[in-house]
């Protein structure tokens, strides 16, 4: 399968199943239209459209040559890997819900003020330690284990975070496991001491900030309705600096209210942040801030604009990273990884303050998806199966989607909440994902052409 696209003024062809990207001129771009799915050239069709003179045929010869070299029209040979992946998958990452409570009331929060439709609750060190025991046992021969401290707001229960971290380090050493920690925070409770502990112990920190003050303050509000931008922005700058502008993210969410989100990304860049992620909100269409299908052209335009602005900034010596435009065309993960993505429910699970286990943070407190608890330490094989058996070949549109090896089938939780079926991805998210991949590739192409 070949996907061709014309983005940021460069014409590209992606050979989907090998991951090779070609930059085309107008003629070769046109001539691709006369190749079938399998890469057979249709000379008659080309003649009919007056596309068979010497120049055209020269381009055709080149495209054929690439096919010959397995760089174009390669076949999808990965389906057989699925069975192997199912057998081998073990839980190796946990999202610990340190506090089902929050000191903000962000309007778009899927956890609804941190409560997850349940009650306000914080995790005890005992539950956290049981979760560590659980993942050590479940992870089998895997050495690397990830723990993500999540909430609500995990800094509301930071002493427990520390206790769990210290326990995991000690136990990890005993069992030959390498724990990697991440914490996600809204920043209100950050102080020097906490920053120091986090920097010493955690490989990543995700800092929630939406961009421009007026955008942030409209959504990320306190219980009394006041905005939180001024209370967090300087702390976040400090965190970023103290980590040498590495191994952290400022992450924001854009909604229907700021479709000009490239302004927010640029605002964060101007504040000096070098690791930036700003993402589309996921919400039921009944919410006034939810993104809708009719917003897509505007959103695509904004992604293009953002890509141009990033290229421009980098040219002027200001480098920053936009998470969704990061793509490694040379050293991307292996095919196994690319088949099934996030691993929710079989490689990754969420643990609530009371110790219940769910496939991921988005399923928390939905009784249908309770997989077990850390005290018993077993997971329901039936629920696990639903997740482990879902991959790009079982999801309806993914098998034919050119972006499948980048996207890996999207978010299972969104598929279930929007379409009631793990195998029916949320198509609005698909459209945005595909646009971002095109932009990411086009940025690489433009940078390469500039270097020439």
């Amino acid at each position, binding site marked *: 399968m070949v996907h061709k696209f014309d983005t940021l003024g460069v014409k590209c062809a992606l050979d989907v199943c090998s991951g090779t990207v*070609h930059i*085309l001129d107008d003629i*070769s771009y046109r001539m691709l239209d006369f190749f079938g799915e399998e890469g057979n050239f249709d000379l008659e069709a080309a003649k009919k459209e007056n596309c068979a003179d010497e120049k055209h045929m020269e*381009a055709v010869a080149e495209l054929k*040559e690439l096919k010959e070299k397995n760089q174009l029209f390669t076949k999808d040979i990965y389906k057989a890997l699925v069975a192997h992946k199912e057998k081998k998958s073990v839980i190796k990452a946990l999202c610990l819900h340190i506090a089902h409570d929050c000191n903000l009331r962000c309007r778009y929060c899927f956890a609804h003020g941190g409560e997850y439709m349940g009650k306000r609750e914080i995790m005890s060190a005992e539950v956290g330690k049981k979760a560590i025991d659980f993942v050590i046992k479940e992870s089998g021969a895997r050495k690397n284990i990830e723990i993500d401290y999540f909430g609500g707001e995990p800094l509301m229960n930071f002493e427990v975070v520390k206790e769990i971290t210290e326990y995991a380090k000690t136990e990890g050493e005993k069992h030959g496991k390498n724990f990697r920690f991440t914490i996600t925070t809204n920043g209100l409770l950050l102080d020097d001491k906490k920053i120091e502990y986090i920097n010493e112990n955690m490989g990543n920190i995700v800092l929630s900030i939406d961009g421009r003050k007026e955008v942030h303050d409209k959504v990320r509000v306190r219980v009394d309705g006041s905005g939180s931008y001024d209370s967090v922005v300087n702390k976040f700058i400090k965190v970023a600096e103290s980590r040498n502008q590495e191994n952290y993210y400022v992450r924001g969410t854009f909604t229907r209210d700021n479709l000009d989100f490239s302004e927010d990304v640029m605002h964060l860049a101007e504040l000096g942040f070098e690791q930036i992620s700003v993402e589309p909100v996921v919400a039921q269409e009944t919410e006034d801030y939810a993104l809708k299908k009719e917003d897509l052209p505007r959103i695509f335009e904004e992604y293009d604009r953002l890509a141009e602005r990033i290229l421009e900034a980098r040219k002027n010596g200001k480098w920053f990273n936009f998470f969704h435009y990061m793509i*490694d065309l040379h050293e991307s993960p292996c*095919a196994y990884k*690319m088949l099934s993505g996030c691993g929710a429910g079989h490689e990754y699970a969420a643990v609530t303050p009371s110790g219940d286990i769910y496939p991921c943070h988005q399923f928390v407190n939905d009784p249908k998806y309770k997989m077990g608890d850390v005290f018993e330490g077993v997971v329901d094989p039936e629920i696990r199966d639903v997740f482990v058996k879902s991959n790009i070949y079982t999801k309806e549109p993914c098998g034919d989607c050119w972006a499948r090896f980048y996207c890996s089938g999207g978010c299972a*939780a969104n598929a279930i909440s929007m379409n009631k079926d793990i195998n029916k991805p949320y198509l609005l998210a698909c459209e945005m994902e595909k646009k971002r991949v095109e932009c990411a590739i086009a940025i690489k192409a433009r940078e390469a052409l500039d270097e020439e």
Partner: protein
Amino acid sequence: MCYNTTNTIFGVIRFKEDIVMKHVKTLNEANLAKSVENGGCGECQTSCQSACKTSCTVANQKCERKGKRGR
């Protein structure tokens, strides 16, 4: 043997034939098929793709065995 190496931007892709690429420039030497060979070690990071976390296009992750896999 005549090798043509003029068509790439990064690295070198050698063609045994004599075709000089005038219409196409190849950007990378990707080979997803080759990555199958080591069997998927599973040591890589998990990657949430939803907006509630720092959602991740799988392709932007690093392979834990980078350098060992020969892609």
